[in-house]
């Protein structure tokens, strides 16, 4: 069994050897075959039907999910004893990536397999698992997850849906209203969160959609993912058998949050599939469309866009599989310590709270960037509803809103990282204080004749120091209420996110070179990305510094940050052209 290499957030203070991380080039044959099955399925059932799907026909989407079920695609994450295939987390993420290219199908599918099924697997007792999970895994039932209410969105624990025990003690009587429920229109089961009596904290229940008193609203008219059913659901004196409570009374909020951790990770993988698909669409168009007598893919402005799209998608991919393997290692560790397998699964995922928030935010913003440039490369045709690029553009936008908005998740990046350090999971504040007290001694640490990767490692170390200094400065200046100054917290979150991305890319490329030898466009990607990241880290640090300090104190911080974010100049034009040229030559995303 592989041991856990990094705890959540530990990347802020600790370096890891490239050998120790997992990279997507290491997928085994079976994992590749599973991904191929998902691709073949989408080629056969999803892509030929995109327009029909977007008309919002509930039966059509349900039918497609049933066809996916025939191939076993609904049981990938479910253990064999519940009719599934017990695949590890890395494989689940590969499946999430692959199906992420499926527009509305992707949302319906991920909702069913993720938030619709996994709460019962993770928190259900054996009977609940046998009764529901075994049938969700085969598609006999389709699942949904009902947390949000008209008055309770980001503040999820503020919901009003109520459950009270019936007089005979056999049922909970459920009353209330849920909103924005994915798969609502055709799901057979719902994981519903409600408060028992006057409890402050939510509990969770498994509800069947055809029980008396459950009323499903019509589908919402949405900006994108139009083929995915989203409804309100009303509960009018619904009798929920007591044995359908999931977990213990008052455990619902914890369940809800843990499931969101999983959802965020998977969203982080979904967006890669969508981004690669968009990049392929964009380069193919650029390789066909002529203006001024030449293909538009020959223009520098277009190459710049293509290269940026590739770099960002590649970074997200590097980070996703890096953390996925960490999750697998932790799950295996929990299992070996005798933890229930369901709980081991969710505890392993939820542990990586810093990373899942990063991957959700950065990934959804990456995809929004990619689809936006995808539209731009298509010019007027990008604005036409006849092309998939327009669908991708509209469908991408939801990712910044659900699974916790990006605002909430930016806060979580900082809150989780600092809380874990406070709990003593790793020593952040010690070295941070030391750096802060010796700002004048800080240099960029450059040494003569350092190797390519040694230089990159030095940059990463410097970025980490910059972040530690800024965390310390923020807490020093704002005290216990540092989380309340959200603009500054956002600056910290941005710095942390950028670091995780660039470090993941650097580690991947170093490992890749140790397997395949030097391949220049990968170094080009890393060079450009490092150069851009240094600037972003510097900019965010500066914004924070001037928000919380002034005068000499600010000057000292600014000087230290300048040194720590100093990187060698890069001919970004030439590097981006080489990256774009490789994409143009391949005529599809193949990095």
């Amino acid at each position, binding site marked *: 069994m592989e041991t856990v290499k990094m705890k959540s957030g530990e990347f802020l203070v600790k370096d890891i050897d490239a050998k120790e991380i997992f990279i997507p080039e290491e997928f085994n*044959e*079976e994992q*590749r*075959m*599973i991904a*191929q*099955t998902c691709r*073949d*399925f989408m080629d*056969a059932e999803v892509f030929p039907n995109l327009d029909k799907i977007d008309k919002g026909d509930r039966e059509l989407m349900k039918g497609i999910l049933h066809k996916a079920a*025939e*191939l*076993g*695609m609904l*049981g*990938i994450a479910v253990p064999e004893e519940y009719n599934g*295939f017990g695949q590890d987390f890395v494989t689940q993420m590969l499946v999430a990536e692959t199906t992420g290219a499926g527009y509305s199908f992707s949302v319906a599918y991920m909702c069913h397999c993720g938030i619709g099924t996994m709460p019962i697997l993770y928190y259900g007792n054996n009977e609940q698992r046998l009764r529901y999970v075994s049938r969700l895994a085969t598609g006999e039932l389709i699942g949904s997850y009902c947390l949000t209410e008209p008055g309770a969105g980001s503040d999820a624990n503020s919901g009003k849906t109520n459950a009270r025990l019936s007089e005979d003690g056999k049922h909970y009587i459920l009353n209330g209203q849920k909103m924005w429920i994915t798969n609502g229109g055709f799901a057979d089961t719902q994981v519903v969160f409600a408060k028992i009596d006057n409890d402050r904290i939510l509990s969770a229940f498994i509800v069947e959609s055809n029980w008396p008193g459950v009323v499903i609203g019509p589908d919402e008219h949405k900006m994108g993912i139009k083929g995915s059913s989203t409804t309100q659901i009303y509960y009018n004196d619904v009798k929920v058998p007591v044995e359908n409570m999931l977990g213990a009374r008052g455990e619902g909020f914890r369940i809800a949050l843990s499931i969101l951790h999983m959802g965020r990770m998977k969203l982080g993988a979904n967006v890669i599939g969508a981004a690669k698909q968009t990049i392929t669409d964009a380069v193919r168009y650029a390789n066909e469309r002529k203006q001024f*007598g030449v293909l538009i893919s020959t223009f520098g402005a277009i190459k710049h866009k293509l290269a940026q799209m590739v770099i960002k998608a590649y970074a997200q991919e590097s980070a996703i599989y890096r953390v996925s393997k960490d999750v697998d290692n932790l799950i295996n560790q929990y299992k070996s310590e005798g933890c229930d397998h369901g709980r081991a699964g969710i505890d392993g995922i939820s542990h990586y709270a810093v990373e899942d928030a990063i991957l959700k935010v950065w990934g959804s913003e990456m995809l929004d960037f990619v689809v936006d440039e995808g539209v731009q490369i298509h010019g007027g045709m990008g604005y036409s509803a006849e092309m998939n690029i327009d669908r991708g553009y509209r469908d991408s936008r939801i990712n910044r809103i659900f699974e916790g908005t990006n605002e909430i998740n930016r806060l979580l990046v900082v809150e989780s990282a600092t809380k874990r350090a406070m709990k003593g999971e790793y020593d952040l504040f010690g070295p941070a204080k030391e750096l802060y007290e010796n700002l004048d001694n800080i240099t960029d640490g450059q040494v003569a004749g350092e190797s390519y990767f040694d230089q990159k490692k030095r940059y990463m170390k410097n970025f980490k120091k910059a972040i530690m200094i800024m965390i310390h400065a923020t807490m020093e200046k704002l005290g216990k209420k540092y989380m309340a100054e959200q603009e500054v917290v956002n600056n910290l979150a941005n710095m942390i996110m950028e670091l995780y991305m660039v470090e993941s890319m650097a580690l991947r490329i170093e490992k890749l070179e140790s397997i395949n030898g030097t391949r220049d466009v990968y170094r080009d990607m890393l060079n450009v990305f490092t150069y851009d990241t240094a600037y972003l880290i510097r900019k965010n640090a500066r914004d924070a510094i001037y928000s919380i300090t002034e005068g000499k104190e600010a000057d000292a911080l600014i000087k230290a940050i300048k040194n720590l974010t100093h990187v060698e100049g890069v001919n970004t034009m030439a590097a981006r052209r080489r990256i774009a040229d490789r994409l143009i030559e*391949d005529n*599809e995303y*193949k990095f």
Partner: protein
Amino acid sequence: MKILVCISNVPDTTTKVKFTDNNTKFDSTGVQWVINPWDELALTRALELKDNPASGVKGVTVAHVGPATSEPTIRKALAIGADDAIRVNFEPTEAYQVAAQLAEVIKNEPFDIILCGIESSDYNGSTVGSMLAEFLNAPSVSAVSGLNVENGEATITRDIDGGKETVSVPKPFVAIVQKGIAKEPRIAAMRGIMQARTKQIKVVEPVSVSPLTELIEFEPPKPRAKCIFVDAENPKQLIELLQNEAKVI
């Protein structure tokens, strides 16, 4: 009754074909390998027949002549539903060698129906199936677009100019199949992928067969000539180009 499906391992059809070593070697770097599409359809039909109890087909085996590096493609066939596989551990340079090796396999372990794709999408030779039948001294039917088996009796439909022809053949026979034999290739289901782990790939050593042909070189297609736009106001330039560049007038 047992069916053998002969499968070839070919570059994915979207591969950009490049050559190395002075155009004498196919450059396989970065290539994704797949089951030859016609063979995949043959396999699909074989599995459909096996699924139908009235056919009498009890087992479907796939055979491949190639090195260990092609095993992922063989396992894909197992994941799709073949019961077991035979790989002749030999890197053939041309079709005659493939047919000869396959014939040895079948002589040692007889099959009732042998299916080959009409061609492989890499070299498009279209010769393995008929050579194999000749080696086996068995009947062969080419351009097969329909295969039915009931109670052990096979009827075959072939596409002919402007229509179809239906024939029956005694077993064992070689059917060389083309599009139409099955609608869509099957997608490997999760269960199949998991089962493929435990299915057997029997590796047999090759017999010695010298090739009949020798490769001299490959010639990639010439890049498409560039397109020149001539202004409508400028017919002189057009005439000039047609005379001196295209040399057609």
